[in-house]
């Protein structure tokens, strides 16, 4: 993962581009792997039955790949249509429709400002009664988006820092990240489901085939090799798909950080906010695992996210906070340099 190492040089727009390209690449890998799991199996079966006698089975219709795709599409659709409400309900968030306190008014103002900066409609605003500072966004498109922040975040952050965090979440909304991650989660889910389901079916099916007296020698060497690779792929599929999904998730976090820098033109504020979140030790009580990948920082405080260069690099939903801060500070430095004044920490009124 040397490509992820922080270089304080590039501007926020260059970082955005780089992260978009990497996401595209990862999603292409994901789709290809998924297609191999489904249609690859059909192709192997097609090869294996190619030289069968006319009255024997010929596998010509790729029902397995189509089944896999349909089930994945169904799970993804289910995720879209129930996801946002479920997440908000599970966190016990309450919506701010009529801001009463100064704190709530400020939050509404900040969200409205950032919606203007992002050029998207104002999302619905929710507060979670949780002392741990955190925030998340949900909703499948900018027209039906929600942003939720915890009470702890409101209490801890300055106006500028709150702006940075809100801008990060609006970055997710503008990039359709919730839709992307819901789709990837559906694909991971269907892989798990089908592996568990068809594992039994498959072994049963194969022994049935043997009893029909089909000799192993009939299969070409190519088919055997492909079959072995394919079965191995299925065994490793849950890990591989999960790794790819998490890699995409981390890229989207960096991208949302860079979007936040674009909207606020004040990356240092978000860096400070992340620092505060990192050092706060209030436990998250309301943000469950279901919403973890949506949050600005992993609320479960899994040690995976804290150690660059270890297993955390491949299985964490968020990049290490240290790396994010370094990149944001790099953007702040590049910005200050472009404007011809240093140091970079000049907060915007």
């Amino acid at each position: 993962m040397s490509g992820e190492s922080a270089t304080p040089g590039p501007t926020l727009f260059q970082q955005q581009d780089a992260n978009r390209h990497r996401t595209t690449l990862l999603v292409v890998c994901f789709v290809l792997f998924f297609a191999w799991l489904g249609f690859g199996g059909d192709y192997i079966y097609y090869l294996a039955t190619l030289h069968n006698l006319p009255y024997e089975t010929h596998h010509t219709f790729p029902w397995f790949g189509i089944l896999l795709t349909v089930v994945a599409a169904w799970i993804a659709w289910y995720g879209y249509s129930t996801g946002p409400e479920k997440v908000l309900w599970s966190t016990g968030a309450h919506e701010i429709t009529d801001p009463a306190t100064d704190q709530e008014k400020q939050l509404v103002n900040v969200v409205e400002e950032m919606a203007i900066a992002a050029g998207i409609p104002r999302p619905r605003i929710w507060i979670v009664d949780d002392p741990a500072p955190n925030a998340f966004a949900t909703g499948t498109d900018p027209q039906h988006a929600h942003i939720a922040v915890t009470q702890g975040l409101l209490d801890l952050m300055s106006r500028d820092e709150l702006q940075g965090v809100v801008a990060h979440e609006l970055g997710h909304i503008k990039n359709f990240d919730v839709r992307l991650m819901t789709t990837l989660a559906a694909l991971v889910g269907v892989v798990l489901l089908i592996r568990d389901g068809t594992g039994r079916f498959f072994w049963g099916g194969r022994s049935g085939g043997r009893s029909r007296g089909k000799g192993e020698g009939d299969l070409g060497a190519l088919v055997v090799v492909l079959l072995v690779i394919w079965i191995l792929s299925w065994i490793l599929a849950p890990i591989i798909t999960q790794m790819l999904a998490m890699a995409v998730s981390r890229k989207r976090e960096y991208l949302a950080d860079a979007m936040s820098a674009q909207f606020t033109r004040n990356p240092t504020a978000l860096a400070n906010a992340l620092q505060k979140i990192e050092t706060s030790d209030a436990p998250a009580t309301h943000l469950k695992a279901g919403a973890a990948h949506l949050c600005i920082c992993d609320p479960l405080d899994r040690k995976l996210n804290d150690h660059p260069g270890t297993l955390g690099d491949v299985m964490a939903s968020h990049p290490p906070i240290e790396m994010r801060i370094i990149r944001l500070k790099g953007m702040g430095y590049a910005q200050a340099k472009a404007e011809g004044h240093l140091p970079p920490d000049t907060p915007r009124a």
Partner: protein
Amino acid sequence: MGSWILLILVVVVVLWAISAYNGLISLKNQTTNAFKQIDVQLKRRHDLIPNLVNAVKGAMDFEKSTLEAVVQARNQAVQVNAAAGPDAMKQISQAENALSGALSKLMVVVERYPDLKATGNVGQLQEELTSTENRISFARQLYNDTATQYNTKQQQFPASLMAGLANAAAAQLWEIDDQADKAVPQVDLSTKPKA
């Protein structure tokens, strides 16, 4: 065979031309819309100021001149906005900058009197003013970013070939007095992959 290759070539070129044309039109409309957003926010500011000034008039009796300067600058800005055509960006921008100056002076005054800040109304005034100023500057920022993207797109080869057909003309950027806000970020639209 040769005619097939020619046909494919023509189809590819036509498809590219359509997508380049549509891309330019889409950016043009986004730019227009972003410009309208600045108007919306300026109007909001003009509507808000009289209310805010009324709300704090009593508490700020001793700083009458500052408040009056704000009201005056606001009325001036409203006049310029009403009178000026769509091309008079410079005039509008000057009047609005004068208003921004008067407002920031008011903010400094509020900062100078901690007792004043503690009064409920004035604390709210401060938040509303901050938010209003932010909204305007963020609306301008979005406009400038979008306009820069549009300008870059219509100048870059090969999209520049379609610029005439799409009636694309360089959009004027909003000028900002504040030194810190002056730098327009460099938007890199090239699609070359980065390491």
